[in-house]
């Protein structure tokens, strides 16, 4: 593998390329048709993860790399997930205290 590098048929790149165009079109449509609420957020996240997944798995060839590589790339970002969880709690709290002390709802 290391001698020849990642070599795959061209067709898979073209298919993924078209697929990324279509998914991007869908996520643009979410805004164009002004979908709101939970539907908007879940669709945005769905299309985002689909696009990210295809780019990482096919274009960056990660699905053909060894398990060691997958662990190298996917274990450290767990720290980011924890940070996001903590900061969303913190964000909510900051908002709550601001409403309470600076901008009381009338």
């Amino acid at each position: 593998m290391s001698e020849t590098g990642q070599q795959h048929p061209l067709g898979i790149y073209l298919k993924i390329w078209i697929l990324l165009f279509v998914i991007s079109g869908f996520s643009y449509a979410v805004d164009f048709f002004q979908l709101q609420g939970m539907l908007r957020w879940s669709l945005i996240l769905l299309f985002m993860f689909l696009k990210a997944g295809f780019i990482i798995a096919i274009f960056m060839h990660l699905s053909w790399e060894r398990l060691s590589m997958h662990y190298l790339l996917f274990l450290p970002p767990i720290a980011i997930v924890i940070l996001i969880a903590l900061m969303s709690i913190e964000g909510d709290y900051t908002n709550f205290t601001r409403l309470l002390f600076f901008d009381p709802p009338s």
Partner: protein
Amino acid sequence: MTTNIEKTSSFEESGVTGLVADWSSDKQAFDMPWGKLMMWIFLLSDTFIFSLFLTSYMKVRMSVTDQWPPVSEIFALTIYGVHVPLLLIAIMTFILITSSGSMALAVNYGYRGDKKTTAILMFITAVLGASFVGLQAFEWSKLIFDEGIRPWGNPMGAAQFGSVFFMVTGFHGFHVTCGVIYLLVVAWKVARGDYEKKGYAIVEICGLYWHFVDLVWVFIFAFFYLW
């Protein structure tokens, strides 16, 4: 001699047994050129930087009490009298995806040893990347001069909008600019035949960086422009 055979065969096992074999004994753990591994580790660290930017954006956006500016309207364009929301960003997104596709093809042709096609495809990728940066410069000037958005405030709502916008898109634009320069240098060296003997792994390494820039844009597009 015996150790040599063991080294190559251990990389052929798959799954968890392969994982254990990769990390066992005193040998190379990752079966790839060192430059590629270093690029992956750099991209992992870059993931952390962009994640921190986006996490701070989430924190700011959750805690503001002012109305967040209407992003879809700010980035709307009026073309031939038709008002299309977020059009500029959609065009930029499609340009970046197109460049990612041409880069993937460049990697493929590189490993075939077709240096002319590889160099041309990399050059196309760089031109698309440069046009992305150009559109971003247009977007920034529109926001600064026409809409009066500043890092410390804006007429549309929450003051934090400007600082988040300029920092996140600015840092991404800087990455694209660096990528364009990197692509042009490598494309030039490919065309000159510098990698005939060394092999074309450099094109794949370059491609990893470029796809990562596209990947970051996917997240910025979703969280900043669509949310």
